[in-house]
């Protein structure tokens, strides 16, 4: 027996198909025919889905039998989750990136990754087959052996690249000052943490997070600013001549960068007739 919903959707599909063909024949407009045709196909597919859902049968009961109680349909309500909001923020950021720049797009992609992975983790732990012991085993045998090295390399790489962008953006003397300042800050912070009797875990996490974000932000700012200009060094002898060999002068640029940030190439315009 075809459910009422299926009948309605099949009717929509049939009329859509007729409209598609009739419109195409009348106006010779293949594009309208195509789009109406696809709508008809879509309606048909939805009608088939309603048909296959197969939930339109009513169980037989005697007319005088008292009304029974049944549990409501659907699973229990889900636990609260921040990941839908993070996912929406990711979409919004990506939409904003289309009107701003690539950096905003990268932020959007990072948010999307956080939302996706976090959501997966939450669904995983909410499944009936999950248990705390199983989670611990996964953590010890998979996440830590794989995730920890990868995470550390990524973290070190991010810090190294960010710091290098800062150093490349600053003037020569500024670079030396910055390097000394960073070294002193690290030394003093480590000394303070090591010498204090008790350091609140939250404070430590907040501090390191803030420091990491500051380094990354500085790196982004440095990249946006662009590298400083480096003088082309000529006539530098890199290699001492071997006995008996003529002396050679290897003229080389120490760095070819000209101090401008990456520019987008203008789109080529070719006329396609």
């Amino acid at each position, binding site marked *: 027996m075809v459910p009422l919903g299926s009948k309605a959707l099949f009717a929509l599909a049939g009329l859509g198909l007729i409209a598609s063909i009739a419109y195409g024949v009348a106006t010779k407009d293949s*594009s309208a025919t195509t789009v109406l045709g696809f709508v008809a196909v*879509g309606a048909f597919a*939805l009608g088939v889905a309603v048909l296959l859902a197969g939930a339109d049968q009513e169980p037989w009961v005697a007319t005088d039998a008292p009304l029974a109680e049944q549990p409501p349909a659907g699973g229990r309500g889900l636990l609260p989750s921040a990941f839908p909001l993070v996912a929406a923020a990711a979409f919004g950021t990506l939409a904003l990136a289309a009107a701003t720049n690539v950096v905003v797009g990268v932020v959007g992609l990072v948010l999307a990754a956080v939302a996706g992975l976090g959501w997966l983790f939450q669904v995983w732990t909410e499944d009936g*087959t999950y248990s705390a012991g199983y989670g611990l085993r996964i953590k010890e045998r998979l996440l830590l052996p794989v995730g920890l090295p990868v995470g550390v390399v990524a973290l070190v790489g991010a810090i190294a690249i960010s710091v290098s962008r800062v150093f490349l953006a600053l003037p020569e003397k500024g670079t030396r000052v910055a390097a000394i300042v960073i070294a002193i800050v690290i030394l003093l912070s480590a000394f303070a943490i090591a010498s204090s009797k008790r350091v609140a875990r939250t404070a430590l996490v907040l501090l390191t997070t803030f420091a990491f974000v500051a380094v990354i932000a500085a790196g982004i700012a440095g990249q946006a600013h662009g590298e400083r200009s480096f003088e082309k060094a000529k006539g530098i002898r890199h290699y001492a001549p071997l006995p008996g060999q003529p002396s050679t002068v290897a003229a080389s640029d120490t760095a070819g960068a000209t101090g401008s940030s990456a520019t987008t190439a203008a789109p080529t315009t070719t006329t*396609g007739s």
Partner: protein
Amino acid sequence: MAASGVQLSLPPADRAGDDGHDPSLAVYGVVAMGVAAVVVMGALMAAWLAVEAGTQTWPPKGVTVQNYFGTTLSVTMLMSATVGWWVLYAVRRGDRRQAAMALTVAMFLELCFINLLTYVMRGSHLGPATNAYGTLYYAVNAATIAVAASGILVAGLTLVRVLGGQVGPARPQLGWVAAWYGTFVSLVWFVMYTTVYVVK
């Protein structure tokens, strides 16, 4: 279930969820969103046909459409869609190893597809700023790549849950999701293939 190599002592894979949740909901959700994705491609195809009916013929001067690439992309997508149904077969048999392998192959094939399509896009010298066809060509390819990337994501999520023992003969619904989603991704490509390579 004996296995060589690292044994993670995974929990039994075929224990149905006992919270009253109906896992088949995911399948119908995929069907609904799949219909929407195919209609998007149909609309882009309609736009293409409208431009073609105007002043411009396809392909424009200086642009070559190589059927070799189109065929290779189609074969790759066909294989990926077929492998998606292999995933379902393995899940229903309770063969987690086979299901995981099939999902990995499906993801790899979709990655190859994206790689080749990107290469074809770059080689066509038909950017979004070139002309009307450039905008359309870019839109159609970008939409196809986005759908294929989402296919990799869905396969990846299914792989994680297969490995975690949350998909099995008693709960094959995610296998159905992987199979149907792979089919919709290939349908999206075939709409594009018909538009770009067949209707000339």
